[in-house]
């Protein structure tokens, strides 16, 4: 069977017929060709597939595309205000060398965005705990924590 879904991804409306078993991450990657969202595991553990569904960090490997019907989705490709600008987290990751191979980075940034949304002044500990659902094998997390701190600081400056 296939089911029609209507979703808004990065501000653009899409409508597709999909098989119920199609995972949201595969819808984004294979149907919409938004390949910034990655798959690193099959147990909802690694967080590489993290996106925002209705503003909340979501492991898109653990959600069916049909479940996203009617939802607003943001992926790494859509988190910056425009194509020529960076989100403070993207900037932070670059400034603080918060990435090496880049594979976990989109998921890290999307999770960090959720953390900062709920807690604009996180402590180092809160950042580390907040990222418990995202694995990075390259950076040792040290510079990722700094990147999130950078972004938190930057976002405060903007709002002040």
């Amino acid at each position: 069977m296939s089911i029609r879904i209507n979703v808004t991804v990065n501000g653009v409306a899409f409508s597709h017929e999909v098989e119920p078993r199609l995972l949201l991450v595969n819808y984004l990657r294979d149907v919409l060709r938004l390949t910034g969202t990655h798959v690193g595991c099959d147990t909802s553990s690694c967080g590489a597939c993290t996106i925002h569904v209705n503003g909340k960090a979501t492991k898109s490997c653990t959600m069916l595309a049909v479940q996203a019907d009617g939802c607003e989705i943001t992926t790494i490709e859509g988190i910056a205000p425009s194509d020529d600008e960076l989100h403070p987290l993207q900037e932070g990751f670059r400034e603080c060398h918060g990435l090496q191979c880049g594979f976990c980075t989109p998921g890290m940034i999307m999770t960090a965005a959720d953390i900062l949304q709920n807690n604009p002044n996180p402590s180092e500990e809160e950042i580390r705990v907040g990222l418990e659902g995202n694995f990075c094998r390259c950076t040792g997390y040290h510079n990722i924590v700094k990147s999130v701190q950078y972004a938190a600081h930057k976002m405060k400056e903007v709002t002040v």
Partner: protein
Amino acid sequence: MIPVAFDYQRAVTVDEAIAALSSGDGKILAGGHSLLPAMKLRLNQPAKLVDISKIDALKGIKEEDGEIVIGAGTTHGTIASDDLIKSKLPFFATAAALIGDVQVRNHGTIGGSLAHADPAADWGALVLAADAAIITKGSSGSRRVAAVDFFQGLFTTALEDGEIITEVRIPVPAEGTKTSYQKFSQPASRFAIVGCAIMKKADGKINIAFTGVGEVPFRDSAAESAASIEAAVTAAAEGITVMSDHFASEEYRKHLAKVYLRKALEAVA
């Protein structure tokens, strides 16, 4: 990892979900955080999923008739940050914040977790210690199942075919009630190796429940009836079949149960 093909139906009311289930071989999809991973690994191959995640009636937390009512479709994240929960059932908030990770808590639900009945899931200990009732609904109507009667075995509950959980109801604790949830996490999955939930009532009576220790979460009546912390710790987790895996043998797990019981008791002392 791709599940076996299945049919999908989205329900917008509880009755619609129950009707959809009655056609047989269907499974409820709530937050999906227990079911979908199992389906991706093809360990679970339902012919049909009935999606209840859009049923508003299953969501939310309120106080009603002397009970705190948590809709089965309420996420762990919502419970962790809810003001009513934080003031009346603080150990629910503590436990909810220790489940999975931010992303899991944004979608995983209390009802889904209870129905799945993983022996290491946190909620089991909480509902037991809080004297909660699990409200279920099927084609023949609603049932109220006491938490102590709900967990029946490994991944097995009192839920009957075609039934769904609609609410978790917890008597509003009296003024002076103290609670604690202490957890030793399995380092990889962060499920509980030992989770100990305690509710100390104003009259001094203590409910003690464990998850992660045995094949089902349980109230530890021997520990509850002990006269001192020391006696409770000595009595705890005895006489049950304690689980064993490469993170915690039976002996070590039992030891941890006692250590974490002591922590919990000291926290409410």
